Each structure stands twice: as C-alpha cells, then as structure tokens.
C-alpha cells in the first residue's frame, strides 16, 4: 500500500513537473521534413501533424491554411485586396507562388486526398485557395488527438511579400499546411488577407530543413542538429515548444553572428542570432544594440523573455518585402547600408518586430479579427522603448536640427487622416489598406498613450504587465484587455474603450472664447428706487471684470477636460469639466482681466485631433509669428538669388 502511495505521488510529481515545464497548452504537434530546391525556388516537405480536439464537441472535418496559394494568381483575395504588386513585366511561370498538397492521410490509415476541398469562408472568392477543408471519416472526439500525414510542395513567389525569394535569398514563411483554430464549436480559419494573417494554436514544432551546404540557415527555435549529407546538402533540425508558427530563411550571403544575452532582473538567458546580409554588415552593431534594448525593455516591462533563442534576419535590399515581419523566436528587420545613424528606422523595426514576440508571439490574439491587440499594443510598446533608449523628442529622427519622435509621427498620421473606421474591425473589412494601418497601428498606439496619460504611467505599466501575465500563451480578445485594464486600474473604463476602440469619430475640444468685461455700477430702478452711478466714487472704485471662458466640444467623442485659466496678474485657476455637454462656461468676477485659457495643459490627450484650438490668449504673441514670417521671407530671398543667377 505504501509502495502504491509512493508510486502515485511520484506520478503526480512528474505530471506536475511536466505541466509546469510547458508554458502553453499544446494543441498541435508538427514534425516536418523540408527540402529547399533553389533551382525550383521551392520547398518540398512531409508533415506529420498531431492535433488535439480541445473543445467539448466532436470535430468531423479539419481546416488548413494554405497561405502560399495567395500568390497563385492575380485574383486571389490577398492580391485583390491590395497585395497585387506587379512583377514589372508579365509574370513568368516561376514568379507565382503556391502550395500543392500532394497527399494527405490519417497516420497509418485512410487516405484523405480525395476529401480535400478549397473553401472561402470570408468572401466566397472561388479563385482563392488559401483555406482547405478535409472531411474526416470519423469525428475526433473531445480531448482526443488525430495524427495526419501530409506531403506538400511549396513554390515560393518572386513577388516577395512576407514570403518569397529574391536571387539566392529565400524567406520561407507561411509555407506548410497549417491547421486552423477550432474555437467555440467551429473552425476559425480565415483566408490569407492583404492586411493580416496570424492566428494559430500553440504547440510543438520539430522541423528538419535540408539546403545546399553553402546556405546559411536561420529558423524558429533551438538548433538541435546539423548533419552534412553526401549529396552536398546539409540538414538542420530545429525544435521549439510553446509557439504557434514556424518560419525559416536560407541565403549563402548571410553572415551569422551569435551572442549570448543575460539579464538578471527579471532573469533572462537567451542567445541572439543575427543573420546579416553581406551588404549590410555595417548595420550589425545597430541591429545588435537595438535587439538588446528590445529584450531588456519588454522583459522588464511585461515579462521575462522565455525562449532560448531569438533570431534577427536582415533581408537584402531587393527583398525588403520580406522585411519587418514577425514569427515565433524569429523576425525580419529592414535596413539599407547607407541609412544615416540619426535615422533610426533599423532600430525601430528591430524593436517593433522583436516586440511582436510578446504581442502576437506569446499573447496570441486573432490578428484576422482584432489586429490592434498585436499591432496597436506593440506600436505603443515600441514608442515607449524608442523613447527610453533614444530620447523622447528624437527617438526616430535625430539629424542635426531635425528631431522627430516616434509618438509624434504616430499622432501626426492620426490627426491628418480621414476617420473611416474604428480600431476594432476585421482586418479585411477596413475602408482601405491605409485605413487599416492607420487605425490598427497608429491610432491604437495613440489611444494607449492617451490612456496612459489618463491613468498614470505606473497604473498603465501594471495594466500591461497584468495583461501579458494573464494572457500569455493564450488567445485574448479585446474585452479581455478591457477587463484587465478595469480590474488593475479599479476604474470603469467602458466609456473610454467604447468610444476610442469602437467608433471612428474624433475627439476635439477647443477654447471657444475668452471675454473680460468691466462690471458697471448698479444703474436704474432697484426695488422701487432709482440708482445712478456716483461720478466721484467711480474714479476711486476698484474695477471689477466679468471674465468668461467658454470651452466647446467640437468632436463627437467625450473626454474629461482640464482647463488652465490665467489672469493678467499671473493668477492661475485650474478647472475640470466632464466634457459631456457641447459647451460649458466658466465665469469669474475679479479685479483683473483674463490673459489666456488652455485645455489639456499637460498635453495628455494625444487623441485630441487639434491642439491649436486647445488654447486662446487675449494678447497674442506677436514675436513668434514675426520670427516665422521673417524666416520664411529670408528663405524665399535665398531661393530668388538662386533663380537670379540663372
């Protein structure tokens, strides 16, 4: 009996250990053997997928993403949504990309190849073959697994966007038949859209990649093996748990640089692997420094980076379509060798794409449906990181007198744009690609910066940390973020998120008018008696002014306002207004006149689309416009001297 108890205890201990080791619930287990055929610009592969039905209903069909079919013809959903970048001249047959599923069967069992069918759940576009459905002979019961074997051939596109090839550079992403997410009793498996592409379950990936031996390979996860083959090829084996995708790249012109990264608080130990194209070697220090900054910032502000590797891929200039993309433990950056040091595009892209390892990689929202949760939150995080490491007023551009911050660029785009969409919308439902980018990236980031200014940096920091901690290795939705924000801040923030995430309207408050009028002595009939102003006393009497400040709400959205009112004698009054009405008036009877009034004096409301009308003064500053106008005149004079020399 004692022995049995010990055995049970040991089993429970091991089970506990096993569960503790896994960071996520493993729904999928992929074992893939892939071979790059450079001459054919293609990868041939064999995939063994074990899928767990984690739902409480039987599943009678499987759905797979076949992303590369987005490049199959010019009428796919991806191409027709704006992903159609012309090949320059007429496309050749080797320019198109596609994935051919040659065989699919249940392991050691029934061949399902004839059961394959392309479906178009989003737009019914019959020319789109980016989602495949396979009917199963028997349903997979809840908490049962099914193992599928697939043979496939992935032809990479020349029109490199995210995936593809240029010359001897291969970016092998979204390249294998990838199962969708079974959620809420149905498959969530969207077509490949121009704007977004990510949503998958966590699990285990073991991938063997065979390439010509002169190729340098970078891939998701930890390298477990490297074998020279007799036919002049080399096979690399990578393994990673707790991820939801696998990407790799191969190019003989990469220089591989490896450097360990260690952080004590929180404890992080990882290896930075940089694959820098030979033409960009001068950028390696910039990449390395910004990657270190990224790991430090995200680890300290959200949670320790948990993986053993992080791989940065630097594509050649003609393959920048593959640049600026994120995959688990691997991302592509973007840079050109002659970019000036003060123009921090490589740093910004590196930090942003590394950051996706958190917002997308670990906190794995459905990008098809709520892209702001990864792109918006990550843009916000990127701005914070850029500010910290490169200076708040010059984080993106620092070229002599030209200094521009990341936050300013984001806000400038928000205020200059039309307001056609809310932030939360399915990625293919936006008015245009521009509107998608504006809302999902810039407006979402500016919204979170505004929320931070409203809640305070410390509370916002706690919100972000809690959101990451609670939803890492899971699939959060917008409401989950709101729940965390409300819980941590202890405030009802529904009014904020309902307006700013779900409405395309604008926030714009203004000082409507300032007025100071002298209050006259009583004159006329009061309670039956005639009163006339005393001429003698009028001279001695202290003047009293009726000072009025009118604040107006010009936009549809509502936000509590702070107003700083300044009088001629330097006295300052700070007022608060809930901002709900269309206007409000503040009145003061004082022996001095008004000087100025300013809304949002601390410049907190980055979402307010017009900061010019946030203040008004009764004594305009004449010197500053004079200086600007004289400057402009002098510039024009210089231009004229050039013309006159002609």
């Amino acid at each position, binding site marked *: 009996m004692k022995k049995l108890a010990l055995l049970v205890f040991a089993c429970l201990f091991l089970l506990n250990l096993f569960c503790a080791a896994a960071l996520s619930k493993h729904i999928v287990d992929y074992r893939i053997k892939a071979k790059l055929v450079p001459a054919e610009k293609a990868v041939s592969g064999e995939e063994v997928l074990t899928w767990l039905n984690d739902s409480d209903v039987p599943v009678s069909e499987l759905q797979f993403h076949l992303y590369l079919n987005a490049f199959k013809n010019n009428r796919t959903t991806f191409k027709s949504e704006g992903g159609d970048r012309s090949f320059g001249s007429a496309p050749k047959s080797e320019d198109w990309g596609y994935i051919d599923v040659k065989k699919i069967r249940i392991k050691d069992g029934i061949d399902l190849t004839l059961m394959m069918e392309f479906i178009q759940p989003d737009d019914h576009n019959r020319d789109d073959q980016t989602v495949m459905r396979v009917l199963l002979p028997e349903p997979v019961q809840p908490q049962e697994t099914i193992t599928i074997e697939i043979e496939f051939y992935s032809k990479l596109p020349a029109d490199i966007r995210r995936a593809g090839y240029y010359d001897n550079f291969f970016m092998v992403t979204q390249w294998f038949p990838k199962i969708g997410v079974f959620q809420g009793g149905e498959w969530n498996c969207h077509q490949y859209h121009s704007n977004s592409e990510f949503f998958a379950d966590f699990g285990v990936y073991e991938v063997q990649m065979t390439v010509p031996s002169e190729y340098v390979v970078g891939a998701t996860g930890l390298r477990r093996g490297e074998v020279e083959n007799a036919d002049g090829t080399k096979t690399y084996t990578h393994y990673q748990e707790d991820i939801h995708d696998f990407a790799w790249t191969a190019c003989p012109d990469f220089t591989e640089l490896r450097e360990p990264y260690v952080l004590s608080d929180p404890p992080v130990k990882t290896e930075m692997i940089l694959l820098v194209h030979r033409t960009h070697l001068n950028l390696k220090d910039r990449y390395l420094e910004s990657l270190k900054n990224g790991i430090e910032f995200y680890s300290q502000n959200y949670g320790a980076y948990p993986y053993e590797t992080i791989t940065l891929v630097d594509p050649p200039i*003609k393959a920048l379509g593959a640049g600026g993309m994120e995959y688990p433990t691997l991302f592509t950056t973007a840079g050109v060798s002659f970019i000036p040091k003060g123009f921090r595009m490589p740093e910004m892209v590196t930090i942003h794409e590394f950051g996706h390892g958190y917002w997308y990689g670990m906190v794995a929202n459905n990008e098809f449906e709520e892209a702001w949760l990864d792109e918006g939150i990550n843009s916000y995080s990127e701005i914070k990181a850029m500010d910290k490491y490169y200076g708040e007023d010059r984080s993106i551009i620092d070229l002599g007198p030209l200094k521009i911050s990341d936050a300013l660029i984001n806000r*400038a785009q928000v205020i200059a744009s039309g307001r056609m969409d809310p932030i939360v919308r399915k990625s293919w439902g936006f008015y245009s690609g521009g509107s998608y980018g504006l809302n999902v990236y810039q407006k979402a980031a500016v919204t979170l910066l505004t929320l931070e200014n409203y809640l305070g940096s410390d509370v916002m920091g706690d919100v972000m940390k809690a959101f990451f901690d609670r939803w890492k290795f899971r699939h959060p939705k917008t409401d989950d973020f709101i729940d965390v924000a409300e819980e941590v801040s202890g405030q009802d923030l529904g009014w904020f998120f309902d307006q700013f995430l779900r409405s395309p309207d604008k926030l714009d408050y203004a000082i409507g008018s300032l007025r100071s009028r002298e209050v006259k002595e009583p004159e006329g009939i009061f309670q039956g008696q005639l009163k006339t102003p005393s001429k003698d006393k009028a001279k001695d009497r202290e003047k009293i002014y009726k000072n009025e400040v009118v604040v107006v709400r010009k936009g549809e959205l509502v936000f509590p306002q702070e107003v700083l009112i300044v009088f001629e004698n330097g006295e300052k009054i700070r007022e608060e207004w809930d901002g709900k009405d269309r206007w409000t008036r503040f009145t003061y009877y004082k022996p001095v006149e008004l000087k100025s009034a300013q809304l949002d004096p601390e410049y907190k409301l980055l979402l307010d689309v017009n900061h010019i009308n946030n203040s008004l003064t009764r004594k305009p500053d004449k010197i500053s416009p004079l200086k600007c*106008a004289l400057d402009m005149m002098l510039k024009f004079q*210089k231009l004229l001297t050039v013309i*006159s020399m002609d």
Partner: protein
Amino acid sequence: MRAGYDAQVSETAHCDFYGLREKTMKVLRSYGNGIKRAFLEPKMVVVLWLVNFVFASVIYFLFSGYLSDTIGNSLVASNFLKGFDFKTFFELMAHEGAGLHWILYAAFILSFLFYWVSIFLHGGILSVVKTRAQGGMTEGQDTRFAPAFFQGAGKFFGRFFRLSVYSLLLWLVFGIVYFLLNLLMKALTAGGTNEPAIYYRYWARGIIILFLYFLIRMIGDYARIKVVAEDSKAVFGSFLFAIRFVFRNFFRTLILYYLILITGLILFSVYWFIQKMVPTQSLLFILLAFLIGQVFILSRGWLQIALQAAQYHFFDYKR
C-alpha cells in the same frame, strides 16, 4: 646632338609651363577683376537686393497673415520661438494646410515673375560692366549708373528672353546626356544586392546633375555677354558662339566659374556661422538675425555682379 635635343625639350617644356601659367594667371586676373568691379558697384548691389526684397516681402505679408489667422490667438504660436517646432508644424499642416498651399502657389508665381525680372536685371548688370570696361569712353554713352543700368536692361531684355528660349534646347540635350549616363551607371551597378554601388550611383547622379546645371548656366552667361559686348542682334548665333567658346576654353571657363562658386560658398559659411551664434528668442535678436540675413542677400547680389564681370573680362581677353 643629345645636348641640342635636351635644350629643345627643355625650351618646349618651359614654353608649355609658361603658357599654362600665363593662362592660369589670365583666369585669376579675370576673377580679381570681377571681384573688384563688384566692389565698385554698390548701387547695383543695392538695386539687386531691393528687387529681391520687394518680391520676398509679398511672402512675408502672406505668411504673417496666415500665421495670425491660424495660430495667432493660440498659445502654440510661441512654440516656434525656440526654433522650428515639428509638433506645431504637423498641426498646422493637418488643419490649416490649405492656407499653406496658397502661399506655395504664390511663391511659385513670384519665382516665375522674378525669373523674368532677373533677365531684365541681367541686361542692366552687363551694360554697366561693359560701360565700365570701356571706361565710359564710347561716344554718346551715359556712364552714370542709373541710365547705364536701366537703359541696358530695357535694351537687351528681348534678346535675353530669346536666349532663355534657346537655352531650353541645351536643357533637352543635357537631359539626354544625363539619361544615357544614368543608363550606363545602372548597367554598371546592376544586381540589386550591391548596395554600396547603388549608394555611389546616387552620389554620382547628384554630381552629374549639378555639373550639367552649372555648365548650362555658364553657356547662357557667355551668350548674354557676347550679345552685350558686341551689341549683337544675332541671338541664336551668339548662343552657338557661347557653346563653342565654353567648350574651346573648357577648363578655364570652368575654373573661373567654380572660383566664384567657391567664393559664394565661403560667404555662405561665414553667414551660417554668424547666424548660428545669434539667439532668436527676443525681438531685438530676431531683427538682428534678419539684418544679418539681408547682408547675406546683399552679398549674393555682389557675387552675381562679380561673376558677370569676371566672365565679361575673360570673354574680352579671349575675343
């Protein structure tokens, strides 16, 4: 035999060296003459500055009115006092960009008008330079500045106008040359992964454009000088002559032109350093900075006269 040969070689070399030195001296003499002439014509410098000032003041009034209307009553206006403020600039562009577009249109129209006025002024400059070069000895010629300048400006305006039209031909030819050179550079830097080559191609492109631009301006200058110096009505002939003249004296005309350009660069550097030292956060210093700017514009007028006078001197010597 050997000694005689050596002596001959030495004599030839001496002659070549002497000739080269003499040619260089001529260019330097022309340069010096141009500088001297510019110093002797303060009235002309003032006229050039005044015309420039009048045209530019339109932009001042437009821009100042625009700023008063848009941000004049807002506290953000003071953001511009410390320097160029991108935050406020982006706001202006987003909300009041249409007003700025109108100012840009006005600037374009003013530049276009100024171009024709500058053609008019060119006639004046060269007439005065010619009069001074001849020492005012030509019979019946009024050597006073104003008549010489304005009569000359009026007299040659039509001919210079035609020259400007002919110079379009040169722009066309140089456009083709640039296109061909660019094609060649593209071929040499083919292969999209060769970034340093692409980088150097951009630089080379810029240098070629600048070189061709200055060359066309130089040819135009000599064509105008020929017209004025010989009071020629054969405008197209003068244009062709100027092309021949420049290519026959290629290096010397180029050296002279670039000497003046370098003088201009030195003047600009001096101006840049001085204006960097002036803080522009009070009315007094703003006005001081503006005054320094006007001195620089005066110096540009002075340089223009120096260029025309130097080229005139060189042309006179070669004629």
